[in-house]
């Protein structure tokens, strides 16, 4: 009974749109005209669509670069602030700040950072003798620019999760290892990493899903350009649906994205048996 409001809300605002979107993928649906069933036509068009291909590749590029960086940096930051030192709380807060700031606002500021002549990025590169590129209007550098900004923004969240994981590792394991003469590096490899592996799995899954959905940065910083070099799948869904009025086609792209995310997530859960330590956690 008490669940009723949230269950009703779930069906109206989540389940129904999801099912409807899957169905719409098989229609020719001009938002202002109404729809017509057209079977697999949308998917046949997708295969031939070079913008879709570019968006797919761009999204993979973004994900494969930003997830590892963000996870490693998150872990590194967590190790750094996992000390009972005075003032460490301040650093934890600072690292988390980018994550809690609205992406659109952050992206606007990073647009200035990336300005070629007067921006912070190229000024700093200039100090070490590097003539920085025209970040956001270069086909080569626009995507790395988005990746750098996104990693900066997201690693703080990973840090918090890792920190919780680190603090759950029993101290006696480290004490025992020290007694056995294990170095700090060995303690990290043989205790910290395995004990942290369930946390790592969670962080990886969340990061992958988040990365596949990258949108705001691309919209605000580059609008998918130059050309299609930063057009991501979600940005392309927006363009197809709201700029071309092709809702059915947009739904088809969304369905492809859904299948990819589901497949990658399933793969991660299948592979987890190989590397995730479940000992005490499962009892």
């Amino acid at each position, binding site marked *: 009974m008490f669940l009723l409001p949230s269950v009703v809300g779930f069906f109206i605002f989540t389940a129904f749109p999801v099912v409807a979107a899957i169905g719409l993928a098989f229609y020719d649906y001009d938002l*202002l005209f109404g729809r017509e069933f057209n079977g697999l036509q949308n998917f046949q068009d997708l295969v031939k669509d070079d913008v879709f291909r570019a968006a797919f590749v761009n999204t993979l590029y973004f994900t494969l670069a930003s997830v590892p960086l963000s996870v490693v940096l998150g872990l590194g930051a967590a190790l750094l602030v996992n000390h009972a030192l005075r003032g460490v709380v301040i650093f934890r807060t600072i690292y988390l700040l980018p994550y809690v700031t609205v992406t659109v606002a952050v992206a606007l500021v990073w647009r200035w950072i990336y300005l070629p002549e007067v921006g912070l990025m190229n000024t700093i590169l200039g100090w070490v003798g590097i003539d920085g590129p025209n970040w956001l209007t270069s086909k080569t550098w626009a995507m790395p620019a988005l990746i750098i900004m996104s990693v900066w923004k997201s690693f703080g969240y990973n840090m918090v999760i890792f920190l919780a994981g680190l603090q759950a590792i029993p101290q006696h394991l480290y004490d025992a290892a020290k007694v056995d003469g294990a170095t700090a590096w060995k303690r990290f490899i043989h205790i910290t990493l395995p004990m942290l592996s369930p946390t790592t799995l969670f962080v990886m899954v969340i990061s992958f899903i988040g990365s596949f959905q990258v949108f705001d940065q691309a919209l605000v910083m580059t609008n998918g350009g130059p*050309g299609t070099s930063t057009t991501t799948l979600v940005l392309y869904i927006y363009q197809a649906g709201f700029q071309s009025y092709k809702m059915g086609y947009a739904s088809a792209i969304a369905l492809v994205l859904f299948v990819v995310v589901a497949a990658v997530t399933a793969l991660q859960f299948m592979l987890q048996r190989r590397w995730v330590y479940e000992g005490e956690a499962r009892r």
Partner: protein
Amino acid sequence: MKERSGAAAHAFDRREFLRVTGAGVAGLGLLGFAGCGGDDGGGGGGGGGGNEPVTLRWSMWSGSPEETQVWQDLADDVKAKYPNITVKLETTTFQTYWDKLQTQVASNTQADIIGMQAQRMPGFAARGALAPLQEQIDRNPSVNYQDFFPVIQDALSFEGQPHALAYDLGPPLLYYNRDLFKAARIPVPSSTEPMSWEEFRELAQRLTDAGSRQYGYAQDWGFDWIIPWIWSNGGDYMNEDASASTLDAPEAMEGMQFLSDLYRDEIAAPVTDFADPTAGLNRFLSGRVAMHPNGPWQIVNLRANAKFNFDVAPIPAGSAGSIAWAAGSGFGVSSATDNADAAFNAISVITGEEALKSLTAAGRGYPARQSAVPIFEEERPPAHAAIVEEVLNSEIARTETRPFRSTATWQETDVMLTQDLIPSVFLGDPSIEEAVRNVKPKFDALLTRAKDIESRG
């Protein structure tokens, strides 16, 4: 209050971002106010709208509380003239306006009076969302339709039928920074005779000093601003009946190549931001760019934000002349409204002579009615404000202004061109030939789709 009716804004810029919150709050406040206003029953009425009290919804974009207030005042004017008509203003930012309007039309919840832009009008008219207005214009001679500039009548007509009454319009003009010309001791461009492309390039070259980051020229990167280069060289982007793209014709390619070369040779300020459609304007505003093409709707913005003297001239003349488009914005009547006559009466007030005079005085851009033009010309700079009217009516030698040519799939076409053509023009990669080879079949397919939509609509 920056006019955004032209090609100016597809995405939002920094200034607009800062204004969004304020505008939203103000919009809500005004809605509340209008909602409480109620109506005092049938009064003078007249003009074919009947005397039944009606409440009309009016959707419009607005970038600031001040801008919203200007529109609200006009809504109140409607009430003064037609006491039985209450107009409820609903505003949102320019960027979100089009997404919202589309969703509203799809769910049949659109307002009775719809703010519309020339470039996007065919997309809505072809899908049957806007009512044709010719019959009502004929029935109401007091609208004085012939007072509107002919070129904007055409730009807001679809299949020969007016689908909106305009409040503003503009052709691209060549703005120039008088101070930079003075410092370089170079005579300023003539405002009565367009210079040739060769003269323009040489002038831009002389005013460029890349070492101190000063450039002779900068333009916004949208396709709208590439069109004058194509037209002035005798080309076009689609054929007469809009059934095939003609971007691959030599005249069109040469025009784009001429522009592209300005960027390749660093006579034009490099594009540093493809997310900001007004990047070129911002460069010009910084005072380090000598010449910049933009519409007269930017004059108010320049008066407020340019820290230098500026003036306007016709855009440079290529082999075919100085040829540009005219586009603007206005108000249409929803084809789903129950009160078409009242809605038409309301827009005839909102775009009436008095309204356009007050809009012009309030700095809302260049008036769509010729009778309101003197108000625009009262203020300085630019010293040559009077050329706008001459350019619009193609009264200057070698200068011609045509209605903007758009289709039912124009918005999609614009996105495609931004992806596949714009980088080659401004970055030189890939070459124009290669880009056009890729663009041509896509453009053709979009034109076919537009025809299909038109025949269904």
